[in-house]
């Protein structure tokens, strides 16, 4: 893939679904690109379509029309298993409610993508422990997620997202459930990843503070991108 190819590209991407006999237009022909190393924030109210956009980007939903191209691959043309492999190897996901696996320890949660990949465990373990040390959680590597605070759980979730050295990070309200200190940590980390690691970051958020960390931000309303500046550098 050429360096100048966008990491994520929505081309007239639309998503409709039926609900109670009505057609809901979650996304209406969105055109949007996220470049490599770019940190893009999507802002909008609940139900505006921002989460649908994120779901399309990682292939857990498919567009009703238009296309979504991720790292040069048209997701509509990929089989489910290939989409899973793409998510596992090249996309890291961060959720508002952390979504850690309660039956795995902190270390095992971080290692999960590597385990699923079947990667050399020793090497992966070293990397996972490195993340835990970096995030101040090394001493609690064998504890289970329910013993961690929200901020700590989100740090674990970020470590898990980074485990397979992704090209893209998709973050769904990553600070929505955190105190301000933890939120700052998360945003700093994402900013760092975009700048230093060249990760493309697509973040959905309500928070105007979070927008300030992004390279640019777009507003979405009723399934369409609209002009305007919520704050910072919004296109």
């Amino acid at each position, binding site marked *: 893939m050429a360096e100048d190819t966008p990491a994520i590209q929505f081309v007239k991407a639309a998503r409709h679904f039926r609900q109670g006999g009505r057609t809901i237009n979650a996304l209406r022909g969105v055109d949007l690109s996220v470049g490599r190393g770019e940190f893009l924030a999507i802002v909008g109210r609940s139900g505006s379509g921002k989460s649908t956009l994120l779901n399309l980007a990682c292939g*857990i939903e498919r567009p009703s029309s238009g296309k979504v191209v991720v790292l040069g691959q048209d997701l509509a043309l990929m089989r489910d298993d290939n989409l899973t492999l793409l998510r*596992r190897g090249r996309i890291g996901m961060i959720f508002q409610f952390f979504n850690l696996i309660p039956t795995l320890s902190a270390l095992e949660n971080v290692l999960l993508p590597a385990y699923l990949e079947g990667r050399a465990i020793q090497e992966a373990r070293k990397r996972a422990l490195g993340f835990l040390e970096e995030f101040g959680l090394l001493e609690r590597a064998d504890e289970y997620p329910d013993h961690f605070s929200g901020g700590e759980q989100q740090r674990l979730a970020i470590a898990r997202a980074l485990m397979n050295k992704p090209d893209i990070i998709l973050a769904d309200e990553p600070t929505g459930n955190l105190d301000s200190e933890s939120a700052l940590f998360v945003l700093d980390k994402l900013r760092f990843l975009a700048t230093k690691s060249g990760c493309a970051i697509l973040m959905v958020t309500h928070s105007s503070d979070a927008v300030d960390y992004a390279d640019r931000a777009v507003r979405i309303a009723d399934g369409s991108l609209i002009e305007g500046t919520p704050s910072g550098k919004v296109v």
Partner: protein
Amino acid sequence: MRLFLFLNLHFMVRKRLQTCLCLAGIALGVAVVVGIDAASQSALISFRRNVDVIAGKATHQVVAADGGDLDERLFPTVERLAGVSAAAPVVEDTLSIGERGSDLLPVLGIDPFLEAPFRVFTQRSPVRGETGNANDFLVSADKILISQPFADRHGLKAGDKLEALAGAKRAALTVAGLFRPDVEHGGGEALAVMDIASAQELFGKVGRLDRIDLLSPGFANGEGNRGLPPNVRIEPSTTRTAHVEAMVRSFQLNLFALSLLAVFVGAFLIYNTLTFSVIQRRRQIGIMRCVGMTRGQVGALFLTEALLMGLLGSLLGIGLGLLLTRYTLGAVAGTISTLFMPLGETSVSLSPLMVAKGVVVGVGASLAAALVPSYEASHVPPNAAMTHTEAEVKMQRWTPGFAAGGAVSLAVSLLLALWPTRNIALGLASAFALSIGFALLCPLISVLLVKLSTPLVQSVGGIIAVLGVRNIVGSLSRTGPAIAALMTALSMMVGVGLMVQSFRESLVEWIGYTIKADIYVAPAGRSAQRNISYLPEDVVKSLSGLPQVQTADYFRLIRTTVNGHIANLSSVEFDAVFSRARYRFLQGTQSEAHAALRSGDSVIISETLQAAIGLKLGDSIPITTPSGKIGFRIAGVYRDYSADGGTILMDRSAWLRHWKDPRVSSVALYLKPGVDAEKLVAELRGMFSSTVGLTIRSNAALRGEIISIFDSTFAITYVMQLLTLIVAVCGIMSALLALLLERTRELGTLRSVGMTRRQLTTMLFVESGAMGIIASLVGIGSGILLAAVLIYVVNVRSFGWTIQFHWFPGLFVLAIGLAVLAAFTATLHPMWRLRRMSLASALREE
């Protein structure tokens, strides 16, 4: 109440699969209880009615206390006894009808001129095409009156010929007429009546009576003699029913206990469904609490749900139970027919009490299982009704408590097993306490097994497998009850299976060292009262004169009563029997016993009789002979499985000396070396088939027949095990479905971070497979102990015989295989739902 019903019905319909699984579990459990109960009660009712018809209005009966029959010359003496207002002589025997002689027809030989105070048989008017006169049965020896239902079943009418076997004798009879027993509540569906003289001739009892019926309301309820000869006893006419009722009660109690295990397994299902319901409706509970619903009302809401499910499940179960009764009734009625009296066509009687028992068991189990979830639901604050995570936290906190309860239950089980008593119910309570103990230990054992096996699981199956097994501990509130349910079903399968197989193996061993003759000859006509079938004298002579025969055992069997306990008394030729057979003596030795049996008035008794009457080697056992009670010395106690009431064996020389009755019940032939037994069997069949009805079997054929009877007797337990296993599969399926719904977001996360569908499928199969393996490992351990309780406690207290414990590793492999298969089967539907699940909506799930 209306609000509760509305809320519950709405939820039950919305979660219809869970509801259906739960209802199926309750219904199957109740069906097993009702099926067994209705069969036992129906057979018993049928038996009582038949006894009522045969005994009529008699208050007492005069019988031979020595196990034989009465001299008819006794009748005038009895008739003149003070307090006797009426007396009637009776010959009672059985005809075998049909090609294989399998349909039994009880026959009453009566004196029509003395019958009126006792029994009335209303003659049915002749219909077109019928010939003859019903009163002919008074003057012709081959004329017989038969009951209308039996005639209808066999397409017989007056004037028809009836081919039958009376013991070994072939009889060509003519139906003189049809009658209806004149009794209020039915009974006597299969019954024939003959003139007493004709019956005496037909059954080889000329000059003999089986009993004399009395109308003697002033006589006491106990047994007595009233100056009659010492071998004669007067007993209340209800004595016969009492013996059968005792036998059926024991049979019923054992099967009822097994059927309660099925309900116990079903209770886990209800618990799981209710817990699931509490978790699913947490928001609803929270809202209800906020708008003013009290804690008690919240608890009542869930108890109402349990009540609804219990009621619906019980009603379904009663219907299913009636279907099951068609199968179980045959087993119970067959046992009574073989041992006591042919019951004929037995219809299912479902009394309001049986229905009530089914409902009480179903609803009771439902409410008991609902107590904990209802308490949980009512004791959470309005703003934070219980979530799955909270349920797990509580489960983890309670696991040591459950284990402690389990240990206490096991201790109670041990205490009840070792308690020096012959109470069967306490033995069964021990088995129950054992099952409850292991069920309560299941969560802790599951946690320990998962922890211990994780390194191995990780090295073999990687993180997918680890996730699978860890989910068991992570969702213990769900998986614990499901494992306990499956474990209990498997424990029952292994326990009952080991007991039955050990019994079978012990029987095979016993046959191996006792059934040693080469050929066995007996009357072909079956008899419910085995003491009244004899081989014709000429047949016995012909057999003893055969050149191929080295020696023969002339076997005679009667029923006698020892210290109020009914037992078989058999006379055998010990010289012949001990020449080949090696009996297992529990007291004394075969050689010492043989010497004592030959020389004097000694007997050997079976361990079952010893257990019942408590006598031991060297004691004197009182046996009523024609000349009165004589004390026979016990020369040995041996193992025997031939009769559950117990057996006394005496040498034929002693029998002839005391009873002076040379008639023979059957003959066992010991052939000279080199003689082909099968060939001789064929020759003998050819020799006798035209004149008498005989059953001539080789050693192998007799052994096979004994095993086949054993297998058919225990077939009912396999049906019960299968039904219990189905309940357990419903339980595990319900648990997995609930787990899937509760962990939707977790599964969505796994998929979103890169778990493929195949990996997810593997994880779920590992999870369910591991649940199956844990359940089977605990179930095998529990089953082995259950088998020990059944063999060494329940069986000994019920029947008095010792069964050697035998190991059947195949049964363990089968248990593991079935458990894993059951668990995999239960995974298929959740898996199907998972594959249809939208990943995006899964991630949105709370």
